[in-house]
């Protein structure tokens, strides 16, 4: 992790409203280059909306997003060139094979064909999909689809990888592969932002954690820093998360009695 490097992502005063619902409300967030950042929050907290704005899929009502110094509003192509977005539902074409999927995505990001081919082989082998490379994605299991989408997202070697619930529906082996790959990307200098409801994943993988609720950032930092912020002797991330978001334990009253 290089703390001196320019931040991977700087979000300032980000706002987004859907009808009367304020999904994102003056969000300020900075993610350092080369770190794995976990964005946590209850359902409807504004995590996915915020990240969709970072991926260039939604335009904010107000605020700015800067990706490695490129203002997304002013230089969208430059900013998007270094980002990959992996939603919880894999963006795949059912009738394309895994290899063809990677071919298409490489083309979209302008990766030179020979380089893309070599990179595709490396990624598919890493994710145990090489033997399935010529099978159409419609025949893949949920885990295989998620891995194929991840391989496609990595084909252009993004500096910033954004994943929304990347472990949803994966079995233990596939989840381990994905986690290992993300950590490897971070070791290689990339920045990873992920959302997850599995707090243990954030606890084990993330360098820093941000907790968002009602479209605002409640707290961020390492696990130790969050424990200090939450106070009250909270030792696990789950305790910290529930304490900060104000969700009481259903057994709290019972235990007290």
């Amino acid at each position, binding site marked *: 992790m290089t703390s001196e490097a320019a931040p991977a992502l700087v979000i300032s005063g980000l706002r987004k409203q859907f009808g009367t619902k304020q999904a994102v409300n003056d969000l300020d967030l900075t993610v350092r280059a080369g770190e794995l950042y976990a964005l946590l929050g209850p359902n409807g907290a504004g995590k996915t909306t915020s990240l969709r*704005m970072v*991926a*260039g*899929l*939604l*335009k904010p009502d107000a605020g700015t997003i800067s990706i490695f110094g490129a203002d*997304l*509003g002013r230089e*969208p*192509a*430059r*900013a*998007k*060139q270094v*980002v*990959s*977005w992996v*939603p919880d539902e894999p*963006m*795949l*074409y*059912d*009738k*394309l*094979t895994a*290899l*063809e999927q*990677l*071919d*298409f*995505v*490489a*083309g*979209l*990001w*302008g990766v*030179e*064909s*020979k380089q*893309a*081919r070599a990179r*595709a082989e490396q990624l598919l082998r890493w994710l145990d999909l090489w033997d*399935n*490379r*010529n*099978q*159409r994605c*419609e*025949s893949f299991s949920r885990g295989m689809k998620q891995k194929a989408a991840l391989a496609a997202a990595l084909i252009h070697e993004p500096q910033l990888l954004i994943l929304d619930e990347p472990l949803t529906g994966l079995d233990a082996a596939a989840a381990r592969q994905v986690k290992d790959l993300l950590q490897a990307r971070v070791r290689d200098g990339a920045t990873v932002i992920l959302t997850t409801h599995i707090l243990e994943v954030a606890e084990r993988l993330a360098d820093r954690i941000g907790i968002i609720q009602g479209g605002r950032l409640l707290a961020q930092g390492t696990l130790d820093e969050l424990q200090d912020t939450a106070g009250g002797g909270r030792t696990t991330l789950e305790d910290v998360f529930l304490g900060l978001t104000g969700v009481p334990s259903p057994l709290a009253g019972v235990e007290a009695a």
Partner: protein
Amino acid sequence: MTLKPGSTAWLLRHEARLKYRGMSGTSRAWTLGLLGLLFMGLLAAGVPMGMLLNHVEGQPTRALLLWSSAGLLLLFTLMVSQTLFSSAMAFYARRDLDLLLSSPIPASRVLAARCLALAANASLIPLFLVTPPALTVAALGHPEWLSAPVLIGGLGLLAAAVGLWLAMGLFATLGPQRTRTASQVLSAIAGAAFFLASQARNWLPSEQAAAVKARLNALEASPALAPGSPLIWPAEALLGGIGSALLIATASAVLFALTVTVLGRRFAANAAAGAGRDAIARPARGGAAAFSNGAFRATVRKELRLLQRDPALMSQVLLRLLYLVPLLLLLLREGGEGQGGALAPLAAAITFMTGMLAGSLAWVTTATEEAPDLLVSSPSRPGLLRRAKLTAALVPVALIVALPVGFVISRFPQAGLALGLSCAGAGLSAGLIAVWLGKPGRRAEFNKRRHGSWLLNVVQTVVDGLWAGAAYLGVAFGLGWLFLVAAIAAAVTAVFRRPAPVYAY
């Protein structure tokens, strides 16, 4: 009305509700309004018919019976083609069968309701057209004419039974996935067969056409088609023969019930067996080829692959080319005989079909994008991606149209040039209009692509018509006329130009 949950009527209402909800809100209101008006008109149409019948005595003439038989044969063929396709979709494409069969409702009832829905679907339109005038005629003193709706209902049941047997046969020989495509192809061919046959006089060489006519005359005089013959019963039933109508309806109902009993469980078993078959790993040819360079090439390649790998969709798009067959045969006849008299209307028809085909494919490549977020999150420019998708749509059209254009060029160079230019213009215009005005949809909704987009319908038809006119004038009177009308077509197309989609960034 409260129906007992789980009853056959309750299940039928569920089917009807799904069908009704399949229409968009706007089209629902329009459709119901139009149907109401049409119903009143049809009721009124029964008045002159009833009055006319008061002055007609005796049995229908032999010629009337024969024409009615031919019409009923056409109707029945169309009904069978519809039930064949619908049964394949109802049992192998809809995903709610697992839910229904896992419920405590007896499987036989679920399947009977679904089969009844197939029969109702096939006979609904003809019943709607026949029943109101029959009611009026009956009220005017000819109740025997209620035989017509009874007959149509019976034919619907019979068509459903035949469609189910055919679908089962296809399943046994081709498997679940191909059954869907094959049923689609077969149903379209059945529908188009009558059109092709009706045009036989035009496209058959004159000697063969005369021979066919002689055979038809001999058939007309055959005792098998004399009044009272079983082959004529349906026509008699249509024209007031209540006894024949009841006989046909009863026999059809029995056959339908037997079919549902015999095939119902087999269908359910097949559907269960077929449920996971889509997921069977199928290698794709040429998948390991070299990667593309650049977003344009990658997108063209991706779209062509997706078109190629969706046989059900492609058959829907390409089957309309069946209607070109008589035109092409006529073209070959004209070319072979060294004549060019009918070239101008043929060129117009081919140009019109080119526009339709290009518009359909352009809608598929641009409006049915499966991963729009992927494109939006990429650094590729939206305009470039849109051009690539349009290119991918026009490539197959160009390949198909090259055949007649090449043939005409080889025989009549100037007419061929005019045809080639107008086809190119029609394809490009129709493609651009589909790109600019097409509303996003799913590939499975290809047949509904024009619902709720009247502007697309009107503009596409007008522009296709203009290009067809340009082709006609170009072939008949020279290229100067073609350029004049082509300029108008291009101007109309340009009016509807829309900028590339605005991404968030």
